[in-house]
């Protein structure tokens, strides 16, 4: 357990020293800043569509750290060293996902408060949006580690990562957008269920990809 938390702490440190913290956040807030320029200062329109835009921005921000999640550790031999110490690939993937949740998901939630102010979301919607994103972000973290493991070392990994992520996040996006409707309860439950399933499966998919990538 101590070793596991050391690995999670390493993930967080690598993310925060390697641009993994501010890059997705700046991207996320840039989308929130740019969106009103497109729609114009129409308060009703912004309130209706702004939540959805932040959802899409969060999904796309998930893609940004993918290249540094697995590949550097594979190249530097860190993954080999963990494997030879008896770590299962699934456990390594779980540590990486936990690290992503701390290093990426939590700051993104904080940035959502700023982003929703930039767009001018009604306060009632901010609570729903935060809750929905908080439910979905573990799944997004899991997907980013899984896709990073699948595409590590391939040429054009980031473009391929985008292609892989988009279809996999469709359920999250549909239910996430559903929570912004009149009655968010059903959509919120479905979002929680989908997110739980994706979060629970992603360490196994990522672990299998790590194992297959070991040469």
């Amino acid at each position, binding site marked *: 357990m101590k070793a596991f938390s050391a690995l999670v702490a*390493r993930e967080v440190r*690598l993310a925060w020293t390697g641009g993994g913290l501010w890059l997705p956040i700046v991207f996320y807030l840039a989308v929130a800043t740019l969106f009103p320029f497109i729609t114009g200062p129409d308060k009703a329109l912004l309130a209706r569509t702004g939540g959805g835009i932040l959802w899409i921005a969060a999904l796309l921000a998930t893609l940004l750290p993918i290249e540094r999640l697995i590949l550097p550790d594979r190249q*530097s031999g860190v993954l*080999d060293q963990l494997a*030879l110490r*008896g770590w299962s690939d699934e456990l390594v993937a779980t540590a990486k996902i936990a690290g992503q949740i701390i290093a990426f998901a939590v700051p993104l939630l904080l940035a959502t408060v700023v982003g929703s102010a930039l767009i001018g979301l009604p306060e009632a919607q901010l609570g729903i949006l935060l809750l929905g994103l908080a439910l979905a972000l573990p799944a997004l973290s899991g997907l980013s580690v899984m896709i990073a493991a699948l595409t590590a070392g391939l040429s054009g990994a980031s473009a391929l990562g985008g292609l892989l992520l988009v279809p996999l996040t469709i359920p999250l996006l549909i239910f996430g957008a559903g929570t912004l409707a009149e009655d968010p309860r059903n959509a919120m439950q479905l979002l929680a269920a989908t997110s739980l399933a994706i979060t629970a499966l992603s360490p196994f998919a990522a672990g299998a990809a790590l194992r297959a990538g070991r*040469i």
Partner: protein
Amino acid sequence: MASRQASSPSLSAENIAVIRGNRLVLRGLTVAARPGDIIWIRGANGCGKSTLLRLVAGLLSATSGILKAEGRIALADESLALDANLPLEQALQFWADMDGASAAQRSAALTDMDLQDLAHIPVRFLSTGQRKRASIARVLASKADIWLLDEPYNGLDTTSCARLDQAIIAHAASRGIVLVAAHQPPSINVAHSLVLGNQGVAA
């Protein structure tokens, strides 16, 4: 995760064959090591020395044959596995923590490889030879029973080679097992040498 602790380490491989990428890299390989053995694995480039070490480390699985390794294993190959932005000392401490080794053991490993003056230098600034010594220091600090060293003498100057020899001899004296893959002959007495011929046949 660092819980595999054997009373005395041992290593045995029987009739191992490995196929990688449709190519037979090793075949008919048999090797046995007892506590205190230093085994020199030699052979031309591409004869399967690194494959053998990765196999023993459990990073590859044999296509056929039986491999048994008792005891904790440490591997130093061409990948350094130290975080480039961290000072050397902290980067080594990460693995020392993973292995349950103390800060004193980590410092001793740094001193053994004459790296104590570089302890606060970020790993990315180290030279080739210094990086090699750092990866050996990682093995030294790991408290492992079985050392797998892949070309450990590459890039080392004469003094550092002597330090490495001393470390290997000391490890063998404390009933550890050392497998050294090198194309040059080591300057120390080895228990036996394992020659890998063409296609990994143990000659």
